[in-house]
């Protein structure tokens, strides 16, 4: 790829975020693995692609392998969790059990992790690895020593941003509570 192509390809990862903003209220049945499944699948498509497809566990395995081939950023471990979840809650041959807390959500009951999951942050960011956006540690390192870091980062999360970490835009989060926003900002800047 030429340089403009690379920039464009990266910039286009935007789609992931942008449409995510439209579909934030779209949810799967809550259960062990539902958060990870939502975060990974929403990167490229609506969750209705899952909820209206009732597949067998074998077909879900084929489907996930296909999605990974197409470029979904997920590890084999994550793929196993998602497969287990889909085979229980979206299985053609067995009715779904009652919804349950997602005990496998990153961070479990940790209140900040709950916020990161609820606002789809974990789809593109993780603590120590780049997924689509920078890792939280990279963000913390960038703002280290910046007195206005909290305000800058809060604005960025609230309004969305582009250009700091490349041309991939981050979607705005207009509906996030002010206290939740501050909590996330403090936590992110603490990741060193």
């Amino acid at each position: 790829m030429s340089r403009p192509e690379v920039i464009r390809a990266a910039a286009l990862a935007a789609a992931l975020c942008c449409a995510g903003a439209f579909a934030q209220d779209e949810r799967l049945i809550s259960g062990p693995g539902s958060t990870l499944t939502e975060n990974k699948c929403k990167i490229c498509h609506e969750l209705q692609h899952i909820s209206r497809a009732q597949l067998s566990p074998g077909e879900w395995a084929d489907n996930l392998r296909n999605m990974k081939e197409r470029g979904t950023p997920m590890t084999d471990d994550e793929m196993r969790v998602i497969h287990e979840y889909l085979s229980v809650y979206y299985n053609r041959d067995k009715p779904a059990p009652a919804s349950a807390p997602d005990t496998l959500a990153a961070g479990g009951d940790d209140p900040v992790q709950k916020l990161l999951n609820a606002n789809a942050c974990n789809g593109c960011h993780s603590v120590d690895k780049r997924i689509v956006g920078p890792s939280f540690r990279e963000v913390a390192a960038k703002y280290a020593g910046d007195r206005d870091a909290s305000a800058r980062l809060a604005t960025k999360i609230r309004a969305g941003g582009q250009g700091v970490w490349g041309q991939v835009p981050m979607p705005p989060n207009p509906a996030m509570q002010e206290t939740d926003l501050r909590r996330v900002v403090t936590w992110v800047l603490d990741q060193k």
Partner: protein
Amino acid sequence: MENLKKPVESRRGFLAGVAGAGALAALGEAATLREALAQAAPAPAAPPGTVTNEAIKAGKASAMQYHSERPITGSVPAHEHDFEFTPTDRVFVRNNLLTPDLDINAHRLTVKGLVEKELTFSVAELQKAFPVVTMAGMIECAGAGRTNYQPRASGTPWGETGGMSCPVWTGVRLRDVLAAARLKGGAAHIAGQGGDPGAVAAAAPVIRSIPMSKAMDENTLIAWAMNGAPLPKVHGYPLRLVTPGWVGSASTKWLHTLTVLDAPFKGTYMTGSYVMPKWPVKPGEKMPPDTVSTQAWPVKSMITSPAPDQLLKGTERITVRGKAWVGEGSVDRVDISFDEGVSWHRAQLDGGRDKYAWRTFTYDYVPQRFGHLTFLARATDDRGNVQPITPYWNPLGYFWNGLHRVGVMVVPA
């Protein structure tokens, strides 16, 4: 009743006007939608270099039914296909990735791989270098009609009909371009790659290859126009392959590179998608190891008029009209049944000038009773293949070509 009896040919001017009005109506709706969204939440930053769904929908008829927004997919149902060829604003939309916003002046097409001479063309150069061909031709998504399958397969939930179009294409023959590049020995497949970007940088590019026999067909084009106008962005502007009669994914949009290979391209869009079991599996079973790549569509038909649930006056003559096509070969006959398949009656078949275009069939009928009445259409090709009642199930729900049924009500005059 009156307009149903008019021959298709005389409807073209009228329908072109209707199509234009539809596009205007769609624009109006899109503007309202944009306003509503703007009030609800700040619009997210548009991915640079891509086209928004709102812009795509603004160019489409209000009859379009959208099945998903990411990626965007949409089509019109059978009774909205009642045109000689498909107007641009009714051509189905199906992307694997995002719609790129390309610059026709900067765009280049490169031909490489097993060729003596690697070639690069601007769009203007391509248009001047080879004879220009205009023809009508079918493009149909492999999964068209998917929701008819039970159990349901994953993928775009194309309705009972829809996911296919037959517009008029203008371009140059792929074989003329390949001749200019001079194929080397062993050239067996040609892979098309387009400039559509994914939602993540790691997204696999959509690359599909077709065998040289299809590439050398005089109807396989590198096209720049649809229905006499430049390709709309969502349909591949500024250049696309048109591999008529075959699954839509073989007609690479936003085409920038053609690579001549000694074997089928190996990639997820060749081996993971667009494949069927070599031998049919029991409905609901997963894909077996032995698969074949989907290529030409089997023989198929749909009834475009009357529309479902239309009220028909008893004792008055009505015309059952529709389209029939096959991916390779030709449609030889279409039969109509108005008694749930007990008896069949040969319809009149028009068209057939362009090998890969659908043909229009008509059958005049006077209802013999009141009440609910169904019409079934069944096409037969020149090799004797007949549409099945229900085709064999396959895990990804491809190649639905079961009989299309339309039910109407016959009421006293």
